[in-house]
């Protein structure tokens, strides 16, 4: 009984950590530019697929990972420079469609280069699972949780201790004021996308050994990351993490105890509940419209 619960719990927080990282990526970009980046999930996909591909070409794992992260970083910057920046004052609907177009574009290239097949990646520390209180847990789980924790800690330090981090925060609060004090907002935006892409791709790499990876995993994972960010309250970093973990756990519990067919519906059901009863999310701030 308890072992079963623990099993689902571990599955839940593992995938939840992934959602949290994607959600953080959404939050970063949203805070810096008020854009909802529907292509966020594709960074995840690139992380996993590029690593697999590079391993296949004979590169050792660490090099392959680095290569994948670099590729994602370049894509992130390219997305901002060529798709978002030119659109400037566009309607929110238009911006959403642009990022959706970008995600389709990236997916199209991925399909071209890597085909439609599913690929797997070996666990980082071997295939011997660990037994915790009766639950069978893959060693990869600890990698996921560990790396996620390190990334979050690094981000917190980055935003509170470094000048660049503070510059990003300043730009997100008031773009004009930031410019007036000399912050190069264009650079800041590019940086936000870069960080977001790196976050997403790392998430994709660490979770790839657990779930298979293919050219189209980006869509549903991206959407769930979006849901997780909204659950916590878009714009709140803490919210992204809480939202991600919560979503992961509820999803795993639902799949385990109720029905695995409706696993995906959990995310969407939860977001509707939150939007109806707590529209600013669990931790979002209240905004008053000035007339």
């Amino acid at each position, binding site marked *: 009984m308890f072992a079963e619960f623990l099993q689902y719990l571990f599955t839940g927080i593992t995938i939840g950590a992934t959602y949290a990282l994607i959600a953080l990526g959404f939050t970063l970009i949203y805070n810096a530019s008020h854009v*909802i980046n529907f292509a966020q999930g594709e960074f995840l996909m690139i992380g996993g697929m590029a690593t697999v591909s590079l391993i296949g070409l004979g590169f050792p794992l660490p090099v392959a990972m680095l290569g994948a992260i670099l590729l994602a970083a370049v894509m992130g910057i390219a997305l901002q420079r060529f*798709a978002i920046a*030119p*659109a400037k004052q*566009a*309607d*929110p*609907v*238009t911006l*959403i*469609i*642009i990022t*959706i*177009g*970008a*995600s*389709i*574009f*990236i*997916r*199209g*290239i991925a*399909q*071209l280069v890597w085909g439609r097949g599913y690929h797997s990646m070996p666990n980082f520390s071997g295939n011997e699972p660990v037994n915790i209180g009766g639950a069978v847990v893959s060693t990869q789980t600890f990698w996921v949780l560990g790396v996620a924790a390190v990334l979050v800690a690094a981000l917190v330090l980055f935003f509170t201790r470094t000048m660049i981090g503070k510059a990003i925060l300043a730009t997100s609060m008031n773009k004009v004021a930031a410019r007036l004090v000399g912050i190069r907002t264009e650079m800041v935006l590019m940086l936000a996308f870069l960080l977001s892409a790196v976050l997403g791709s790392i998430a994709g790499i660490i979770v790839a050994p657990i779930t298979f990876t293919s050219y189209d995993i980006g*869509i549903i994972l991206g*959407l769930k990351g*979006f*849901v997780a960010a*909204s659950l916590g309250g*878009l714009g709140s970093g803490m919210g992204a993490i809480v939202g991600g973990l919560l979503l992961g756990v509820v999803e795993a519990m639902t799949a385990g105890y109720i029905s695995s*067919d*409706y696993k*995906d*519906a959990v*995310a*969407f*059901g939860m*977001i*509707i509940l939150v*939007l*109806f009863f707590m*529209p600013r999310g669990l931790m979002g701030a209240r905004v008053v*419209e000035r*007339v």
Partner: protein
Amino acid sequence: MLKSLLHNRLSGLLLLAIVIFVLPVFFNNPFHYDMATQIAIYATTVVGLNLLVGFAGQISLGHAGFFGVGAYFSAIMTGVYGWPPVITLLLGAVLVGFLAFVVGRPILRLKGYYLSMATLALGFIIAIIINNEGWLTGGPDGMPVPSLSVFGWELSTFSSYSFLGMTISGSLAWYWLAGVLLLLGVWLAQNLIDSPIGRALRSVHGSEVAASVVGVDTARFKNLVFVISAVYASLMGSLYAHFQGFITPDIAGFMESIILVTMVVLGGMGSTIGVILGAVLLTLLPQLLADFHEYEMMMFGLILMLTMIFMPKGLLPTTQRFIRSRLSKKKGEQA
């Protein structure tokens, strides 16, 4: 002044009618008719969606869900329970209208990205249910749909009919049906827009707070246009089901919803004729890219990005403005 306004309204409709009437001249096989019918069905759907997105300025990323419910309701009720198709079609629309009314109230209180998230979630939930409940819907493999029939008289693309001594293929008959319904859909939509109710709807987009201080119950109107656009989608979904004879869950999916919204934005939000153009382009695009099958997805994404970046107002308004500025330049040169 009223007369000149009428002139404007009817000219778009008249042009459309002429195009629909003349187009068959260029068709030389049933496939052309079928393609045109499909375009007309999608065009009517987006004329309805445009009321919500283009005129009232709301976002809906789950509209294919309503299309799908209409389609599956018709498929199940006529196929499994033998209900008469036309009655089912209308009942399905009522059902979907009611569904939209119920979820609309709480959802439309949200704005901007919250609204897009909620509509996205709604669409997904519908698609997941359709996909999972295989015993009812045939699941991911889809289900067959009986032909549209009225009092035993069947309309199918595989039949041929005689009319006034001529033989008319089922495909041609379907084309006329879809074409007439498109004209009807456009006429009703234009009537709605060009009226006090239409102004109330547009004011929700223009300035919700201004609308409320002159007495517009913005929540009520948002819900009204949401229901109307859902009904359009449901009717067209049912029609599509009968036309194709077979449906799969992806007609209710996320990509479909995105395609619908893109048709609206690409053609020109708030332009009834513009969105029809959007429907034409986005339905034909995969056909044109079929030769580049491998590159299709990539090109689709690229075209989407480029048009949205450089023509954010949509194709038709941007072209209209371009033509207008050219004409005034010419006038300036002549002066």
